[in-house]
């Protein structure tokens, strides 16, 4: 497969940031607190590394299959990270989980709204594998933004506090999800190949931006809890 210099730079930059982030997460022992997020970064780093060596030797069809596998596994892992965030949010606020039916309803409403706005189409005369790729991309794009909106919406309604790390992860995911959805929506309008290629690079750029953001966040320690009784004891005397 042919890659231009921007794609190669983004790819190498992304892998480098994934490696740094993985090292930081291990050093901060994030695997204890957020095991799914930690596994997600480790998995994506391993997969990118494997793809880097494999893509040079693969035919376009095999490359697309490998890309579909990567797209699916990334999306499933990111949705699992969202579920982990939701669970952590409830624990942090010491509140009971909302009814499953309410959660499904909120996710359903969010996805339905985005589906209505998206006006999907698949390019004509596409191969089955291409149709599958486009459909998967559209489906995951909607689901990811829908799930994130549902978590944010429920936390707003219930007035929940967000832990610092949780908010940082949600911010990074939000950047990824929104850009991926915007690009997927734009690509349904069938722009010329050169524009589509730049849009794809924009998605990779958003991944690099969120990785850089997480590296910056996890390089810093979280704010320590204050003991409110002691704090006021000090101010009283």
């Amino acid at each position: 497969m042919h890659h231009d210099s921007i794609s190669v730079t983004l790819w190498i930059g992304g892998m480098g940031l994934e490696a740094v982030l993985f090292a930081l997460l291990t050093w901060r022992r994030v695997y204890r607190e957020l095991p799914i997020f930690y596994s997600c970064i480790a998995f994506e780093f391993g997969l990118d590394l494997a793809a880097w060596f494999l893509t040079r030797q693969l035919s376009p069809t095999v490359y697309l299959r490998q890309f579909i596998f990567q797209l699916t596994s990334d999306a499933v892992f990111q949705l699992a990270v969202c579920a982990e965030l939701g669970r952590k949010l409830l624990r942090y606020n010491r509140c009971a989980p909302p009814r499953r039916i309410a959660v499904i309803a909120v996710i359903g409403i969010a996805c339905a709204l985005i589906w209505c706005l998206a006006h999907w189409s698949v390019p004509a005369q596409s191969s089955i594998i291409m149709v599958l790729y486009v459909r998967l991309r559209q489906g995951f794009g909607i689901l990811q933004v829908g799930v994130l909106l549902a978590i944010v919406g429920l936390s707003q309604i219930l007035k929940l506090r967000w832990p610092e790390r949780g908010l940082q992860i949600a911010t990074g995911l939000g950047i990824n999800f929104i850009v991926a959805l915007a690009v997927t929506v734009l690509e349904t309008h069938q722009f010329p190949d050169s524009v589509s290629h730049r849009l794809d690079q924009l998605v990779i750029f958003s991944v690099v931006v969120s990785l850089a953001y997480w590296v910056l966040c996890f390089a810093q320690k979280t704010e320590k809890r204050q003991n409110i009784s002691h704090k006021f004891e000090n101010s009283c005397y």
Partner: protein
Amino acid sequence: MIVLVLQIAAIAGVTLFLLHWRDGVVRRNRQSWESLLVRLRTDWSARELSEHFLWQEGINATADDAWRRMEGPKGLWVIFKNAGVMLEMADYAAKNSDSVDRLLLETLRSDAMQIRVCVLTALGQYAFSQAGEGVRVNAFRAAQMYSGMAARMTHLLQENAALILPDFVAVM
């Protein structure tokens, strides 16, 4: 073309909502106990409705009497604002103390939600029918729930952060 513009507008709307939400969460996470105390409204106190306000649940007034003593919508609005701030205070206490009772926190959350819904309903009715029967009943219910929430909040602070309780009592 119109579809494309609508789609871009929709995605921009979702992005703005997420940015606005994030900004609110960051601001809320950074607030101090002092900044929360300052946000409590002091232009009306529910002591007008109960001698044992903050220490016991319930009010000593009929619906008509309560409406008069809470100075109509003014008292209702104070109840609405203070219920939200008290919930943030409970969250602050939970964030900075390990011993906060989960059930009590859940009850405070539910109190705040119910009070705010009840006050908004009463204010909505007031906008259309002035101080009709429905408005007074909803205002009475909101005041009753507010006194219960305030008593639970006092209990929470007493159990987990007794030293900051006097500030809260003084402001309320």
